[in-house]
């Protein structure tokens, strides 16, 4: 159950557009919170709040660097979401693969019918 709840949190964490923007920026490299606030046009406390949510699900890591704290992306925490979409995609690919077979059959029949009618 704990694992399921954590996964759910990861999905919730990236469901918020501002948090996705933060992840996008961090994908380009480590940033202190001021940078993020400036780039996103948000007040620092707001950014800190989002960063806290992202850290809780492990999507963002932090390290001390002298006087500032640098935040960075941890893509591994987001892998379940990527995997889900991939799995979903695979299900549809297989379904459409079967549809291809049906369509080939229909095309053959169409051609056959057309020939016999003309």
């Amino acid at each position, binding site marked *: 159950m704990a694992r399921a709840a954590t996964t759910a949190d990861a999905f919730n964490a990236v469901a918020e557009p501002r948090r996705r923007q933060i992840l996008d920026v961090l994908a380009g490299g480590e940033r202190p919170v001021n940078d993020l606030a400036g780039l996103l046009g948000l007040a620092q406390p707001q950014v800190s709040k989002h960063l806290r949510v992202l850290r809780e699900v492990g999507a963002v890591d932090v390290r001390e660097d002298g006087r500032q704290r640098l935040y960075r992306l941890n893509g591994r925490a987001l892998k379940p979401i990527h995997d889900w979409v991939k*799995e979903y995609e695979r299900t549809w690919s297989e379904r459409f693969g079967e549809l291809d077979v049906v369509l*080939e059959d229909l095309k053959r029949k169409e051609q056959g019918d057309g020939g016999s009618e003309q």
Partner: protein
Amino acid sequence: MAAVSSSGTARVTLPTDEQILITREFAAPRELVYRAWTTPELVKLWWAGRRGEVTSAEIDLRVGGTWRYVMVASGGHEVAFHGEFREIVPNERIVTTEVYEGAEPLPAADEPLNIVTFSETNGRTTLELLVQCTTKELRDMIIESGMESGLQEGLDLLEVVAISLQPGV
């Protein structure tokens, strides 16, 4: 994998917080894709993919008409879906609600909509299936339920859940 050459794989994207978009091109004119999509005997042939068998497909193809598909997955469990057609433009567009009968019932206004469009270029058809949920919460819930099941029960169940999110109409 398929005996007949495939036109590619399905592409899944999440355009907005409330949507899932599935896109695929087919090497056939759109009249045929539309027919395969809307004819019960044909739906039975492809809709289960390779994960089971469609045991029942009913389609009343008119606005206000309903459809219902039942599939028995390879594991033996039965999965059923139904919906109501909201908009039909033959060979071009179908809008329908979609309900997974294994889930807790949603208020009618919250049932996800499937918007399917068929467009043709040079004899090839691009199919777009847009799943439009009413809220971000609903779509997030769909994603979460899919992931949770996948982690707990393995691939088979995940696929059943994934299928449950999107019937083929």
